[in-house]
Structure formats: C-alpha cells, structure tokens
C-alpha cells in the first residue's frame, strides 16, 4: 500500500467532469483503493500494491473517469518515430535491462514536477521494490547529445556531480555521503561494476538506480522536452514503469517519441503502448462470480475498467496494467465494475460435517481438569529469551533460535513452559497469593527429520506458589489428572539443576516419559526474585494424547 496526494483541480480536469467529493470518494473506494481524505484542493488516497498504474494522478483520474462511464474503454497513446538512440554496450549482468522514451511539449510547473517526483518515488518504493527491481531517470532532452550509451564501469572510474551536490563525487563518495546514495547503497553492495548512462559527449548522465547528474539530469519548470529511462532486473517490469511515467507526462500535454535501443545486432523500440490480448470465457467469469451476464453486459463492464474489446472472447489489456495475469483477474475487474455492493449474497446448500481437532478437544479437557483443581490459566508468548529459558534456570536446554530477533528479550522459541510460569510469578509479587497457575502451550525442538528442521509439542505447565507449598501439593495435581484420564504412572528420581535434589522426579506412563515434577531450587527462585517456594509440573500433552 502506498499513500499518494493528488491535486483535486487537476484530477477533476482529467476526469473530465465536475463531480462532488462524495462521488470521488465512492468511485475511488469502489475501485478498491482507500480514500483517506479530501482537504481543500488535496485528495489523499491509499493505493493497493496491485495497481501501480494508479500511483499517478493521471492514472487514478483515468480509472475514475472510465469507471463513471465518462471517458471509458482503452486509452490510446500515439508513439511517434524518432531518431533518438541508446546503445547498450557491455550492460552490467545484475542490471541488464533498459527502456527509454522521449516526451515533448509537457507543461511542467512546480506542482507537476512534484507530482512526477512523487510518482517516481512511489513506483520505486512499491512496484520496483525499493529500487531493487528497477530505477527511473528523467532528463531535460536539450542537455543530451545522442546517441546515448548504457554501459557499466568499475566504481573507481565513475565521477560526476550528483543531484544536489556542488562538486563532482566518485561513485563510492556518492554511496557514502549522498542521502539517496546511502538509502540505496545496499542494492550495489556486492556489485563489482556500476551501471552508467553516458551521452555522445561522454558526459555521465546518471548512475542507475541511484542518482542523476546535476548537470545532465535535473528537470526544471521550463523543461518542455524530457528523456526518460528505466533500468532494472526484469524487462517487463521496467517497461510498465516507463509506460506509467510516460502516460502521466502525456496527460500534462506531452507527445511521445520512441527511442531505439541497440544491442549488438538487435534493435528494439520503446515505449510500447500496444495492449496485450487476453482470452476469456464468459461462462468461467459467470461461474466464478455467481452471475448470469450476457456478452453485452460483460463488455460494458470491461470498458468501464479501461479494457478494449477485440472480439467476443478477447479483451485488450491496457499497457499500464501490470496485474492482469490470468482471466481470474478479468473476472475480478468485472466484479469491481459490477459493484461489490450489487452482488447479492447467497448461502449454498452444501452438506458438510463439522469436526473439531482431536488434540484441541484433549487440550480443552485438560484445561477443564486444571480449572477444577482451582488453577488459573495464563498465556505466554512462544518467543522468549535464552536467558530466561536456560541461564536463569541453571540448565543447558537448547532453544530454537531466530535469525533476526528484534532484541534479546525475544530471541528464541521456548523449549519448556516452566520458565514462562516463573516469569509470570516474578511479575506478580504484588498480587494476592496463593498463585496457582497453569498454561497449555507450544514448545520447540530442533529435529532434522522434520521438513522445517523443527518439531513442536504441546505441553502443560503447572505451578503452585505460596507460603507452605510443598511437593505434595503438586503431586496431588498430577495424581488427580492421571486418575481422571485413567492412567497409571511411574515416578523415578531424577537429576535436574533447576530443582532441589531429592525433590524432583521424572514421570512415565505406558513406557513413555511424559513429565517432570518437582520443587524449584532456591538458586533458581533467587534468579527470578521469588521469595516463596514454588512447585511445578511440566507434562508433554502431545505424548499423553498419543498414549491415553
């Protein structure tokens, strides 16, 4: 999602009709965007990621105009032949693609330059993935001697005056000291060569996708003729970006001229506004939407969404629409044009049998038993700290780690529940005792045999904490639970540094280890600043569920 600001006067001019604020809001929202506000002459709209063509004032106004049946159908762009040429020589392998255009006659005032810069930035941030997929550059045509060359150079050899600088700087200086350079330096961090545009006089025009030259690439209010280039990793993507920028300049009064791109013996011309053809099946669309439209109705809907109609089962997709990948997208646009609010809801008579997950039922039953024993349920995060899980517990438990933790407090997935319970006790010393708690939660262990390399278990943790609490109190909980499940269990002496020696046991049932029970060691209590005894039980519910 990207938020753009649009000049209302200009917008209405492009829509081609004076419509009220309410009508603007309804149309923008019906198209699936979010109109945030209209204040004075400024309209603020949140544009969804699938519609970069609406990031421009002209794109949004065009869509609204068509949607309201004012200027509907496929928009045509005339591309005039020209002799402008760009030689692609030795393009850098990581940034190989180029598309260019020339636009003459666009009236660029201060407002419009701002609008073009906003479009360039928003396209860069969203559709071009923070310029990782592509970059856009605009230049006053008069500065450039053709043919232009797109090539790459070792960074040491690149030196020019970037936008906003008073003196020339080397490529590395730009990446280190220029605000735009610093922002996007990561993209080029592993590149051995940097792409550059040079004109026929061997002047550096820009270093895509970072920055233009101040001398060659600053568009001013008196600029009437513009050279536009887009470069990047995917030809289709940068062509869309070029078309979106060019179409916006056309709405500012510009005429489009093609640019020849010469690469070895191959020559292509851009921009290409020829619509793509897409076949559709009216039955597919009717079935998916639950409608029964005839061809005429559907054709009207397509025109409303800016499509051209080639024949009864083929539409012409506008060259700015990046998001039409399958006829399901045509169906969606037909639904948008039809109006979601006009779709009458219908519950089909489909017979299915509900089923609750068996382990979830078991967990609920265990919780019920715990509540019956007077225990209060708590609910902790699965993300916790290694310090909490291991160090404060005086044990060397291995936890599943995050590669990109935000901080030390939440850097691992928990391997057991008891530390979470002690943490809660530690944070509730001001509250009334006894504090008898239980938690049913997930724990995580590395296990190479799993698809993700991690195995998950559901565990029950119980703690009792008050003056005078003893091992008996927690063993009663275990007894009561096992009795309720009609299971016999065995208890064996165990060794565990978190517990008082001689007051800790390992529990097994039907030959499977299922639980630890014991009294927490004073050294662990002191780590959690606890001044009352604590007895605990941790039981593997995944295993218990299996054997019960």
């Amino acid at each position, binding site marked *: 999602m990207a938020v753009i600001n649009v000049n209302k006067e200009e917008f209405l001019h492009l829509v081609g009709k004076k419509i009220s604020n309410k009508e603007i809001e309804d149309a923008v929202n019906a*198209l*699936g965007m979010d109109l945030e506000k209209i204040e004075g002459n400024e309209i603020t709209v949140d544009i969804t990621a699938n519609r970069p063509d609406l990031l421009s004032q002209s794109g949004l106004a065009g869509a609204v105009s068509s949607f309201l049946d004012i200027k509907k159908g496929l928009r045509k762009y005339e591309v005039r032949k020209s002799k402008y040429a760009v030689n692609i020589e030795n393009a850098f392998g990581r940034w190989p693609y180029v598309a260019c255009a020339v636009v003459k006659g666009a009236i660029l005032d201060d407002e419009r330059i701002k609008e073009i810069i906003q479009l360039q930035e928003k396209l860069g941030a969203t559709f071009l993935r923070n310029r990782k997929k592509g970059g856009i550059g605009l230049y006053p045509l008069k500065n450039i001697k053709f043919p232009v060359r797109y090539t790459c150079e070792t960074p040491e050899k690149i030196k020019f005056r970037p936008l906003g600088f008073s003196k020339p700087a080397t490529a590395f200086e730009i990446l280190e000291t220029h605000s735009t350079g610093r922002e996007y330096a990561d993209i080029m961090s592993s590149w051995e060569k940097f792409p550059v545009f040079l004109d026929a006089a061997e002047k550096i025009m820009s270093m895509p996708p970072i920055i233009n030259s101040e001398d060659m690439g600053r568009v001013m209010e008196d600029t009437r003729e513009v050279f536009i280039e887009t470069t990047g990793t995917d030809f289709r993507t940068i062509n869309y970006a070029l078309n979106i920028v060019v179409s916006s300049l056309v709405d500012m009064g510009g005429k489009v001229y093609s640019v020849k791109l010469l690469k070895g013996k191959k020559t292509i011309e851009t921009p290409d506004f020829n619509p793509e053809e897409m076949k559709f099946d009216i039955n597919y669309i009717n079935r998916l939407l639950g409608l029964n439209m005839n061809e005429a109705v559907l054709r009207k809907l397509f025109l409303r969404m800016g499509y051209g109609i080639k024949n009864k089962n083929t539409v012409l997709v506008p060259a700015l629409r990046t998001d039409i990948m399958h006829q399901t997208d045509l169906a*969606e646009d037909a639904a948008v044009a039809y109006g979601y609010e006009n779709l009458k809801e219908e*519950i089909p008579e489909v017979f299915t049998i509900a089923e609750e997950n068996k382990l*979830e039922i078991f967990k609920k039953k265990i919780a019920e038993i715990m*509540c019956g024993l*007077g225990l*209060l349920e708590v609910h902790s995060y699965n*993300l916790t700290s290694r310090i909490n899980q291991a160090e404060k517990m005086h044990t060397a438990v291995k936890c599943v780690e995050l590669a990109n933790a935000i901080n030390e407090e939440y850097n691992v997935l928990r391997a057991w529940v008891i530390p979470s319970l002690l943490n809660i006790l530690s944070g509730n010393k001001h509250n009334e005792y006894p504090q008898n*708690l239980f938690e049913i939660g997930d724990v995580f262990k590395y296990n190479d045999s799993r698809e993700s390399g991690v195995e998950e278990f559901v565990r029950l943790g119980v703690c009792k904490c008050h003056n005078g609490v003893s091992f008996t109190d927690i063993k009663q909980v275990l007894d009561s639970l096992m009795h309720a499940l009609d299971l016999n269990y065995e208890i064996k002496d165990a060794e565990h540094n978190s517990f008082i020696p001689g007051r800790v046991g390992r529990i097994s049932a039907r030959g499977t280890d299922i639980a630890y029970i014991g009294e927490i060691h004073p050294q662990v209590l002191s780590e959690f600043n606890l001044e009352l005894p604590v007895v605990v039980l941790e039981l593997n519910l995944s295993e218990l569920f299996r054997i019960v």
Partner: protein
Amino acid sequence: MEDLKRIIDSLHPLERKVIPFLEKYSTTEEISKNSGMLDLEVIRALQWLQNKNIVSIETKEIKFASLTGKAERLPERIVMQNLDKNYKTLDELRKKTNLTNQELNACIGLLKKENLIEISRDKTLRIKLNKNSDKWSAEKTPEEKLFENLKKGKIAFEKLNAEEKNAFGNLHRRGIVTEEKIKKISAKLTEIGKRLLKEKIETDVIDHLTPEILREKLWINKKIRGYDIKASVPKIQRGRRHFVDQTIEYVKKIWLDLGFIELQGNIVQTSFWNMDALFIPQDHSAREMQDTFFLGNKGEILRGKIPADMLESIRKVHENGIGSGRGWGGRWKSETAKEVLLRTHTTVLSALALSKLKKENLPAKFFSIGKVYRNEALDWKHLFEFYQVEGIVVDPKANLRNLIGYLKEFYRKMGFEKIRVKPSFFPYTSPSMEIAVWHSKKKEWIEVGGAGIFRPEVTKPLLGFECPVLAWGQGLERILVDYYKIKDLREIYSNDLKMLREIKEFAKWQ
C-alpha cells in the same frame, strides 16, 4: 414493624447479649464488666450492630502515662539507700544496687544536682552522703510520687496535674515512664436501636447448625437466627480459563456450527508453504527480514527440505503462470523457498490442507485459529505474536456471491447484523475483498478482515485440479479488544493475575 422483626431475626448471639446493656452503658469496659463478656466479643458485636445501623460508635484515642519496666523503686532512691556518710567506690555501689552503668551515672548526676552527695576524685571516684541527705530521705520527690502512683496502674494523661506532668517529662527522658495510646470505643443506640430495646430479643438462638443439633433435633422450638444477607463476603479465587482461550472457544463454536473442519499445524514453516505455495512473489516485502521472523543462527537462515517435484510445480507457476496466463517473470529460487520462518498467517494451514485434499472429498470446509508472527516491536497497537482466525470452502460450485453469503452468516453469528465488502488486494486471491462490520454500539463501520477466492495459481498446483476456494480471515485480537475494552494490546498477554482473576467471561457477544 416487619423490618424490626427481620433485624431481630438476623442478630448474632453476641449482638443479642450486648443490646440490653446499651441502655445504661456505653463504653466497652462498662459493658464487658457488667455483661461478663470478653472485651473482644463486645467490640465485635458493637461493630456488627453499627453495620446494621443499630448503634453508632465513637472511637476516641486516649493517652495514658505508664511505667516502662517493672522496677519497685526509683533508681535514685535505691542509690541513696545504699550510701552512707562513708565514701564508697563506684564498683561497690554497682554491686549493691544492681543498676547499669548508665542508670548509675544518671542517678549520681541527679543527686549531685540536688546537692545530696559529695564526690571525691582522689585516685578513684568515690561518693558519700552529705548533711542535706537526711531531710531528703524522709520526703518524696514529685517524680517519686508519680512513680508510686503509676505502680498501681496507668493514669489517663488528662488526669495529671501540672507538677505530675512535669515529673512525667523528667522520667520520660530517662526512659522510666512511657506514653501509651489506647483506643476507647463507646457506643450509643440509634433510633432503631432504641426501638429494639422495647422488643423481646431471645438470647438462646441457633447460629450454626451442627451435626449434634441435627441428630438430636435440638432445633425444634428454637430460633435459627437469620443472616445479614446483604453484607459483603470475602472473595474466593477460582480456577478459570484465560480470556484469550475463552474467546477462541467462542469463535471456534461458530465455525463448527457452520460445518467446518478444524485445521491445526506447525508454527514453524518453510517459506515454501507460507509464501510460495500461496503465489506470493519472491521479492514481496513480506518476505524481508524486517517483516518476518526467520529461524537460524547469527543471520544465517535455517533451510528446510521440500520434495523436488513440489518445488518444480511451484517454480513453473511463479515463472510462467497457469495455462495461457503469465507468472511473475524472473527466476524463482528454490533456496529462497526453503527458508524456515515463523508462520505469518494461518493461510499456510489452508495451503497444506489443500495439498492433502482429494477430489472425492469435495465439497470441504476448513477453519483454523492459530498464532501467527510479524517482525514488529511490541507497542500499544502492535504485537509480534498474535492469533489469526480463518476459513476456506473448497467447492467446485462455489462463487463470489456464496463468499459474501458465508461472510454475512459468519459475522451475524459473531453478533454483527450488517457487513460491507469492498474490493481489495491479496497476492493469493482474485477477486479479493475487505470486510467491514457495522458496530451497533459505536455506530460505525469497523474493518475486520479480508476475503477472496484463491487464485488458480494457488489451487491448481496444490489440488492438482482447478476449483474455486473461498477464503476469509481476520485477527482474533480485533474481536477481543472490543469485547474486553482493552486499549493497549500488550495487556492481553501481560499475565497480570489480578486482571486474569477479575476480567469478565466471554459469555455473550454483543
């Protein structure tokens, strides 16, 4: 009259005993002395009576003078009695008097000031009585008089005269006497109390039923006293479920009522299932480190294992799309798909369910309620770990109007009569929509979740055939904060035991 009877009925045996004495007496001492009750019993009875508005109690704090220790005589008198006209050393005196050094020094200083003794500092300190001492021996000082009086018992401060007060001050400085504060309770009958006096109040009533009373039928012809049922009682701590889990149970019931099968699965997943299988492009921002938690060590991301044929079918879809459609273009990397992460949505469970579903089991409906993760710093409106609720309907005949039908029914059961849908965008659905519900109390539309029909690029590789799959979902905390009026999301998982004990049940939604 009825009221009076009800009051009498509810009187505790102790109250019944006290009431008659209140006609003449008001202080606790007087009442206990005359009734033979213990002080404590009288105080408790009076407090209960006050709660019932039968008496009004006045509490006064009275200061008393009393002795600190249990000495029989003042130390200076003891010293005087052990001296005579011959010099005695300090050691001798200490042995004879049994006084501490400090007390002894204080006494010598005092006697010297009164000019009753003579001190010789020749070699060692020695003391003898002088000629003034005879007169003093017979006469008692004000301090001594007070001391003797206090030996008989404490005296209210207000009853001391000026000389005694001065003497008290002197002795107080020496730690011989002390100031004691005692609360005096006195009670006066209220209008109701006065009316009660005229009534017959039985004193032989049954308070608690005991096995003996029941066995021997002692209750026959006896009064069982009534209770003050309006009195507040101490709180009890009960075992109970966490309010988040209560909410989950509530929502789960709705899905089950609608005939859905519950899905459950792992939190740790590969990008393959969480992203790629859902046609989320590999350069999507949700796949970046600042949006999603990945597992691994020191920046090195853990990679899982995905069967080669699965990788291949998803690669094709991402690169080239389905049928005559197109894909995202570029090169799809299986290494990126193998990255292990904490699931960012429960939609991953829906994808896994589709991959296991067979054609003969259609139509099928599934739902899941599970924890999901986003790489966000914790603040009042962001959680990094929270619950998502979602469902899918896999039905060859399903359509967009059905989806709106299901949504309407689902949210009606959640307590919202009106819903509104508008177009939206998700990489894995087309058409896509955003759902808002009408909040009848707040009188406004609230956005609650998203919905759509899974794209063929999602369903075809997973199912093996094309079939519409309706899907919708939302965050659980959204519902919860509205019900519990929670402003700061962090409170939900703060585990404040007072809050957990006192918060209301998720009993009736809207």
